[in-house]
């Protein structure tokens, strides 16, 4: 049986490549667990602000699982809404109840509206048809409007990570890295060159993707295009420096691709594509070490909520910090190939 010989060879090869083996068996379990947590969480409990609401209604709301926050006036509630402390606030109006939603996440809007209709079944007339208004977005905001900014961030990150990682890996495996390092080229100059060279392409990529999504696909865009560009560019810089850094831990292209389920997929799950409120706290806090989180947060702020520099500044700073740290680590990692 010659086929048996081939079969044996494949089994033996797999046994030597522990990483591929681990990936085949363990990665699906990790990804599936993540999906389980994301999709099987408890129903989302909205945070509801109330202004001078009759006691019994408030009690009802709490009974239905809403967390109640009290505000003295509309201005105060509006502020909390903008800061996303609450998902909506409810106050008595002239005819009907007034319900004001934050609005940027359709799934959250739905949860709030569902709560209202649940309540109406018990409470009767004046809650049944609240006057609904939105801070951001509107009732016709679709899922793609919410996901657009996240997907822009994700694809920029994903492709730049992979392409930069593979090309740096090739530099190592073909010996050109060693050859470059036998010239009077500083390690930092090599890293800077990579950032510059790929930076040109990522700039065009950022421009094209953002333009296409906003102009052609007509995804909701309430902020400044310049900010979108800035954030996508910084995100791709982070992906570039992280990709080249991690390529040091891969021996071939296949092993570089194996970083996708480890580095890319978890970021996608925790970057706001799915509501995180129903996930366990330890899992959610992982998002703070993930660059994509800061990119998609800023992009959502700009594109959906129409915010400016003030609210994206922190995200921008964090992204700059990520890429700076990764760049420095790249320079240090190159010491493995040349000490000076």
């Amino acid at each position, binding site marked *: 049986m010659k086929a048996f010989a081939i079969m044996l060879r494949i089994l033996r090869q797999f046994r030597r490549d522990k990483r591929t083996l681990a990936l085949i068996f363990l990665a699906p379990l990790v990804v599936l667990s993540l999906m389980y947590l994301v999709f099987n969480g408890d129903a989302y409990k909205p945070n509801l602000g109330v202004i001078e609401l009759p006691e019994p209604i408030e009690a009802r709301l709490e009974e239905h699982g809403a967390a109640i926050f009290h505000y003295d006036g509309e201005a105060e509630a509006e502020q909390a809404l903008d800061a996303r402390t609450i998902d909506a606030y409810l106050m008595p109006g002239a005819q009907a109840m007034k319900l004001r939603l934050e609005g940027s996440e359709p799934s959250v809007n739905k949860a709030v509206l569902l709560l209202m209709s649940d309540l109406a079944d018990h409470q009767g007339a004046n809650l049944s048809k609240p006057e609904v208004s939105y801070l951001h977005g509107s009732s016709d905001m679709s899922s793609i409007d919410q996901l657009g900014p996240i997907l822009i961030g994700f694809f920029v990150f994903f492709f730049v990570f992979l392409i930069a990682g593979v090309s740096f890996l090739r530099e190592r495996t073909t*010996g*050109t890295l060693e*050859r470059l390092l*036998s*010239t*009077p080229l500083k390690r930092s100059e090599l890293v800077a060159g990579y950032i510059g060279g790929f930076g040109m392409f990522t700039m065009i990529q950022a421009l094209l993707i953002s333009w296409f999504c906003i102009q052609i696909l007509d995804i909701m865009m309430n902020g400044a295009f310049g900010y979108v560009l800035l954030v996508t560019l910084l995100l791709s810089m982070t992906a570039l420096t992280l990709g080249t850094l991690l390529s040091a831990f891969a021996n071939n292209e296949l092993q570089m691709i194996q970083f996708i389920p480890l580095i890319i997929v978890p970021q996608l799950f925790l970057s706001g594509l799915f509501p995180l409120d129903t996930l366990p706290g330890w899992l959610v806090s992982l998002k703070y070490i993930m660059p994509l989180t800061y990119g998609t947060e800023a992009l959502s702020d700009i594109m959906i909520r129409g915010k400016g520099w003030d609210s994206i500044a922190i995200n921008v700073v964090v992204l700059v910090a990520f890429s700076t740290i990764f760049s420095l680590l790249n320079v240090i990692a190159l010491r493995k190939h040349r000490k000076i």
Partner: protein
Amino acid sequence: MNNSAPIVQASHVSKSFGKKTILDDISLSVLPAETFGLLGPSGSGKTTLVKLLTGIDEGSKGEVKVFGTVMPKLSMMQKIGYMAQSDALYNELSALENMQLFASLYGIKGPVRKKRIHEVMDIVALGPHLNKRVDQYSGGMKRRLSLAIALLHEPPLLVLDEPTVGIDPLLRQSIWNELKALNAKGTTILLTTHVMDEANKCDRLGMIRDGKLLGVGTPEALIELAGQQTIEEAFIYYGGGQA
């Protein structure tokens, strides 16, 4: 010329990765304007030694001096022309574009760059193929292009790791003539080889096996001292085997 200061001087250099010793207490000198050959089978530590001598790698023990400067030192890289064992070329680029990259890294600009590129391409007889993409080159042509790049910045010290592998005998002859011509102009050449008959062309040889330097001297002296007829027999003799 033997009484002038050595270009490359290694004193008691050792290199180990973990518990594995790659190079064991190696001391040698390469003198000005000579061709010094490191002769040894593959896996003997030649490439590791070359990387130590060029400052790409650092020894675990001992000291390497190039032009009297303790290595590794970035500024010394400018004085060394290095040709790696693998053809470290960008296959998607043309020969010219590869040359332009490395010329810039060595700080060669403008008309000088253009002149040097044509000069070195003529030396390795690749002149007509300057604008061809490297992935259309044959193995031997890539080898010659690598050599041309090493010559680009007119380094006073050439370090060549297996320079003539895969090159046909006629061209190998012409490359050796060129190396001798460089010697005559004052360029010092350090090369590695595992081909015994090529070793005869070196002014002096260092025989290396299992990370140990077995002996250093002119090919004739090494053969005579061993009481043998050929370099190959001498190598076996110094290695402790029976000829």
